[in-house]
Each structure stands twice: as C-alpha cells, then as structure tokens.
C-alpha cells in the first residue's frame, strides 16, 4: 500500500476539522489574550464580580438560591448607583455540582473574565478545590457557608459561622432546658465531626455528656441503626449535624420511630427553613436550630429584606434562610471592601487588586474592620475579624413551629469571636499574614 497525496490531504482536512470543532477559540476573536499587568477594574468598565454556584445538579437546590440572592444584592447596590458610581457586573457561571467544573470555572472567572473577586461554594469540598487557584493568583474568594475552620488562608473572606460560634449558645441552652445527656448524629464528613468536637467542649463546660456518636454517609437515608442505638442510650436530646436530603429523612424517621420532639428534641445546625418545608410541618415542629439568621427575625431591616427579596424577580423560592442571608452579607461586605480599596488608591480604579480588597477589609487606616451595622444587616450588626477574616456574629436559637417557621427563643448576649483554631490552640493563632505558630514562625496558606 502506498500512501497517496489524496490520502494525506483527506487525513489532514479531517484532523484539522476535528481540532477546529473541539477547540472553538482557536478561531475565536479573543483567543490568545495576552496575560499581563492588566487592571482588574477598567477605568471605563464595570466592576466584574464572579458568582461560582451550581445552577444544575444536586447542589443546585441550595446554590440556586445563593445565585438569586447574590444577584438581588447586586441589584440593590446598582440601584444605589453601584460602588462609587461604578456599576457592578455579576458574571454567573454554572458549576454543575461537579468539583472538576468548580475548579475550571474558578480559573475562568479569574483569568478569562477577570473578575475582581468571586463569591461562591456551598460545600467545603468545592471551596478546597478552588482555593489553590485563588492562592496561585493571589485572588479573593468570599465563602458564605458555615464551615469547620482550622484553615488560615490569605485569599478568602468567610461570612458564615465557624464551628466554634455555631453551637456556642445552643449547647448550654439545651443542657439547661432538656438535660445533660446528648447523642451526636452527623453526616460522615469533616464539618460535622469538627462541629461535634466543639460541641463536646461546650458540653463539658455546661456539665453535659455524650452518650453516643454516629455518622452516616452523605445522602444516606437509613437511620434505623442509629435510632436503635439512640433508644438504648436514652439521651435527653439529639445533636444533629446531618445535612441535605439525609436531614429530612432523619426528622421523618424520628417521627416514625415514635420519638417526640418535646421529650427528646433534635438540636441542629443546618435544619433551616428550606429543610423544614421539605420534611413536612409535623416532622420539623418542636426541634431547634442554631443559626445567625432566621426568616422570622423580628427587626425592620430583616422585614424589609424578606419583603423586598420575596417580592423581587429573584424571590421565587418563597423563603429566605440563613445561608442566603450570609451570601447576601458577603456581597455587601465585599462592596464595602471595594469602596475602601478605592479610597486606598486615591480614586484610581485600575490600581485595585483583589488582594488589596481583602487587606483593606481588615483593620485599615484606623477605621476598624469592614462590617455592617444594625441598619444594613438583616441579622444585626456583624463585622469581619481583622486577623482571621471570619465574621463576628450573634448566634440565635430558634424553635421550629408547626408552620415550618422558627420562633427565636434565645439570642446570644454578645457577638462571638470567630476562632478557626478554637479547639487546636496548639496549632497557633490565625492572623492576616498567616498562622502564627507557637514557635514564633508564620505559615501562610494553611489549608
């Protein structure tokens, strides 16, 4: 067989067509944009901010709401004339509930869309998947969900409660009202386990004891083995860190196993308004939740937030819950950071860098850290810790009523310090420039 010229030509054309089809931006206009010292915010352009959530896939249940509330917040800001007169342009991508896509889209938001900051992620797994990228480009990520802490990174600002804040008030309250014996149930991953370590510390202080501890796989919906052990141990209350679909199964099976919420209530950290709506009112009624925010918080800022949001085109979901509110705070806090950065550069938009926004969000120029006042934040006054860039907040305890909404039964007296290493004091102290270890060294990017 001898190869003819025609063979070669045909083969070449086929391959070229294949490559062209597979790689669209070979022939696309913006292909090959040079990477250089281009400004993050152009003088004559908008302020681009990335929204890294999943619109599809299983995470979309939560993250759709996050997207909507983020866009709602951006609308509010733009309605006020943007940031110092400059319009905010949200860049929304779909991470498809796939860790691989999160990491790809994060890169896209930073490098291709050149967003000055990115808000995103409901899960720790996706946060950790994108963090190396933010560290690499010295960029800035806003993470709004409650998480376990024990990280000290220089490219992130967290607006959700840390493990030490979350159960701080809840545990003494439950011990006082229901008794010392508690059974810990959680989903099998890091946040529940770390949360429960904090719970144990608070329990010890409050004079309680753990009578059992169980973790079931994420997405698992079979709780009868757990309830079998619960029945044997007879705890006074159950501490739940079960998340998502499993949480609903937990509450429904609790009912079917013949337990009563007034005898042995479940105190949870994530069973919010969405979950109580999904599990049915009789399954949620009587149980407790600790969160910084509830839809029913009785203050005018929150009432306005709830009404405005539910009345807007974004409010189709019908509820506002703690994770949405934390996301909302994230956007407002970010806007304040950008304002300060502009002040820092003396009005030069093009000199603003993502990292600068974070730096000025701390204790800058004697003005104290960025925060939101009682008039701005639905959950009341909050501010960013200037050292570890987590949020100071007041956890509240709500009891679910028969309508799926919560009655606030207790609010912490004071704001609680967000301490990412609260149960690991031997690791050191997280400061703005890194983890200050006991031996005096400073370690950056601890994750």
């Amino acid at each position, binding site marked *: *067989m*001898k*190869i*003819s010229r*025609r*063979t*070669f030509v*045909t*083969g*070449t054309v*086929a*391959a*070229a067509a294949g*490559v062209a*089809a*597979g*790689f*669209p*931006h*070979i022939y696309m206009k913006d*292909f*090959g*944009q*040079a*990477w250089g010292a281009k400004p993050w915010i152009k003088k004559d352009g908008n302020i681009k901010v990335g929204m890294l959530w999943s*619109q*599809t*896939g299983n995470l979309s249940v939560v993250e759709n709401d996050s997207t909507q509330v983020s866009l709602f917040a951006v609308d509010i800001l733009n309605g006020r004339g943007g940031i110092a007169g400059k319009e905010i342009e949200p860049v929304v991508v*779909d991470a*498809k509930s*796939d*860790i*691989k896509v999160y*990491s*790809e889209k994060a*890169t*896209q938001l*930073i*490098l*291709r869309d050149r967003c000055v900051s990115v808000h995103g992620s409901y899960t*720790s*797994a996706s946060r*950790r*998947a994108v*963090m*190396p*990228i933010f560290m*690499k480009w010295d960029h800035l990520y806003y993470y709004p969900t409650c998480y376990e802490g*024990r*990280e000290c990174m220089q490219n992130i600002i967290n607006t959700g409660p840390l493990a030490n804040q979350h159960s701080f008030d809840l545990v003494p309250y439950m011990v006082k009202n229901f008794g010392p014996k508690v059974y810990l149930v959680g989903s*099998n*991953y*890091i946040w529940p386990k*770390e949360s429960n370590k904090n719970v144990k510390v608070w329990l010890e202080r409050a004079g309680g004891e753990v009578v059992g501890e169980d973790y079931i*796989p*994420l997405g698992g919906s079979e709780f009868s083995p757990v309830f079998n052990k619960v029945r044997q141990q007879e705890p006074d209350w159950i501490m739940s860190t079960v998340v998502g679909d499993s949480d609903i199964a937990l509450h429904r099976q609790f009912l079917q196993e013949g337990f009563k919420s007034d005898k042995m209530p479940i105190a949870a950290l994530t069973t919010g308004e969405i979950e109580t709506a999904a599990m049915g009112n009789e399954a949620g009624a009587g149980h407790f939740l600790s969160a910084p925010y509830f839809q029913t918080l009785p203050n005018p800022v929150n009432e306005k937030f709830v009404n405005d949001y539910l009345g807007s085109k974004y409010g189709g979901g019908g509820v506002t819950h703690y994770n949405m509110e934390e996301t909302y705070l994230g956007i407002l806090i970010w806007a304040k950071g950008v304002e300060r950065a502009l002040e820092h550069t003396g009005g030069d938009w093009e000199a603003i860098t993502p990292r600068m926004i974070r730096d000025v969000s701390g204790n800058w120029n004697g003005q104290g850290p960025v925060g939101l006042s009682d008039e701005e934040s639905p959950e009341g006054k909050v501010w960013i810790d200037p050292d570890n860039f987590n949020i100071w907040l007041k956890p509240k305890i709500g009891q679910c009523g028969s309508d799926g909404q919560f009655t606030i039964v207790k609010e912490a007296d004071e704001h609680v310090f967000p301490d990412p290493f609260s149960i*690991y004091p031997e*690791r050191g102290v997280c400061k703005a420039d890194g983890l200050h270890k006991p031996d005096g*060294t400073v*370690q950056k990017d601890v994750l």
Partner: protein
Amino acid sequence: MRRVNLYHDKRAQWAVYVVFFGILAIIPLSMDDPFTMNQYSRYGVFAMLALSVSLVWGFGGILSLGQGIAFGMAAYGMGATMQMQYQDPVNDPIPSFMLTNELEVLPTIWEPFWHTHLGLILAIGIPVLFFVIFGILMFQARIAGAFVAIMTLAMLGAWYNMAYDMQPYTAGFNGISPPSAFVAFGVEVDPYSNLIYWVSLGVLCVLTLATKALLQTKFGTIVQAIRDDPERARFLGYNVAYYQIVLFALAGLIAALAGLVWVMITQFVSPTSLDIFFSITMVIWAAVGGRMSLFGAIFGAMFINAAQSYVGDEFQATWFIILGAVFIIVVRFAPKGLAGLFEYVFGFIPYRVRGTSGARGDAHSASE
C-alpha cells in the same frame, strides 16, 4: 487495483495522528493565555481517560466502569506527593488536615511520599498492581460482559466509601489540596503555564501513539480476537485471562497517568475522583467519539468537554438531558460513534490501492 475504505488504511490513520498532535503542538506557540493552557491540559487528561476506556472496552471488549479506581488512586498518590513536597521535614512535618484528625505523627503509608520519585512510582504502581490483582480475581473466574461492569462498579463504590471514611489519611470528603505546584527535577510545573500543556498533551501523545502501536502488534490483534470470541481464542491456545489481565492493567496504567497529571493541573484530589458518575461519563466520551477508534475516543472526550465548557447559557439547564439523549442515540443508532460515521462516509470516497496477492477486483471493505 481494488477499492478499500480509506478509513482502514493504517498509514492514513497514522497520518491523522501526526497531523492532530502536530496541530495541538502549535497551539501554545500561537498564544500565551494561562486559562486556555490550563483548560486544554484538563481536556488532555479527559482524553487519556477516554483512551483507556477505548483500549479496554473498544478493543478488549471489557466494559470497565471502574477506570476511576486507577484514576483516583493515582490522584491520591500524586496529591500525597505534592502535599509532602510542600511540607517541611523539620518545622512542619505533618499535613494540616491530619493534625486536626487526631494524628500526631505522619502515618506510615504517607512516609514514602516524602520522596518525590518514590511517590510517583507508588502513585502509578499501586493502581496498576491493584488492577492486576482485581483482573486476576475477575478474569480467572471468566467473568465477562455486564458482570465485569457491575463488579468494577461495586469496587469503585467500595473505594469511594473508603476514601471518604478514612478521613485522617485522605482528608475525607473535603479532599487534599496541596498548596503549591508540583516540582520535578527542580522545575516547577506551574498549572497555568505552557509547560503544563506540554506535560498533559505530551503524556497523551505518547500514550496514544504507544497504544496505537501496541494495537498493531500481534498482541493487539489477539486482544481484539478475544473481544470477538474469547472461547475461540482459548481453543487456539491463548490464555485468555492472562491477556485480559494484561490489557486491563494497561488501561489502568493509562488512567493512573491521567490521575497523576490531573492533580498536577488542579492541585486537588477528593473522593469525587472515585465518583461512579465520573467513571461512567468516561465511557460516554469514548462511546460518542467511537470506542473502536483511539482517535475517536480522544476526540469524543475533548469535544464533549469543550461543548460543556462553551455551550451557551440557554443549554445549561438541559445539558444533562442533551448529553443523555446524545448518548442514547449513539448507542441505539451508531454503536461505533462518530468514528463509525466517518468510516461510513469514507466508504464512499473513491480510493484505490494496488491489490495484494490476487485480490478480487470488486472486493471492498464493508462499512457499518
């Protein structure tokens, strides 16, 4: 003179490979965009996975839904290697996530990863070894067809659970994110550089050409024979299980290399690399592109992923429906995928070669 299908012309096939990789090699010369380099490197990894599926399923007839096992194991090995490159033996000898999981000393299974070379060898060697053992387990019992699919799936599920239950060693569900890029031989493999692209595409190129060459040896003919009729091959004196184990392990090797490169690119590894959905998606790539063509499988992986990255917003919500529907259509009407369509179309191109040993004038290769 006799007519044959250009598609079956081995030299034309090689020409396509040369041109394809030639074009891929030109891309970084014409641009300097870290995002594109990073993204195309990812496609390179997906292409390797499709290649491994094509080899084991398209040519070997073994439908493995467990290619993710090798991918994930290698990814964890690489993640551990990169994590330990970041750690300091004196000041900071233990990864952060272990300290918060009640580990005070580095677990023994992590010790070898202090040494980058040993780490790499383990990252590749362990999955391949596992595939050999798993292959012996399955193929010596003459398990075939759908049962291989189910068993690999069950095994994948077992490892997925293991990876996320063994939290002190694997960081569980959250996964390991090595904070710094991989350094080999004093060179930092920056995941946003042209270098990462060369690494990814280079590995893909070498693997593809090696696989292509392998398939043209007698071994390649024999594994295809075994795919067609294992029993016939057995009665011709071939130890079918032996061949299947070797082939399975080779496919595992390719998937393992993909896992290795993947972590270099993303600096992240979590149980999702052992996700059942991901492993089946690899099969979709290969099936859509054409499982019986290495080029087709590679192209399928790149095409579907590029489509996923670049389809407009209006398709976002329906993406999985589109993917599923395309897959159904391919399976139902074009089992050989896009490559099969090419084969069909090429059948109409008049193309002649000088016949061999008295071939008949009008005999032309049939196409599907």
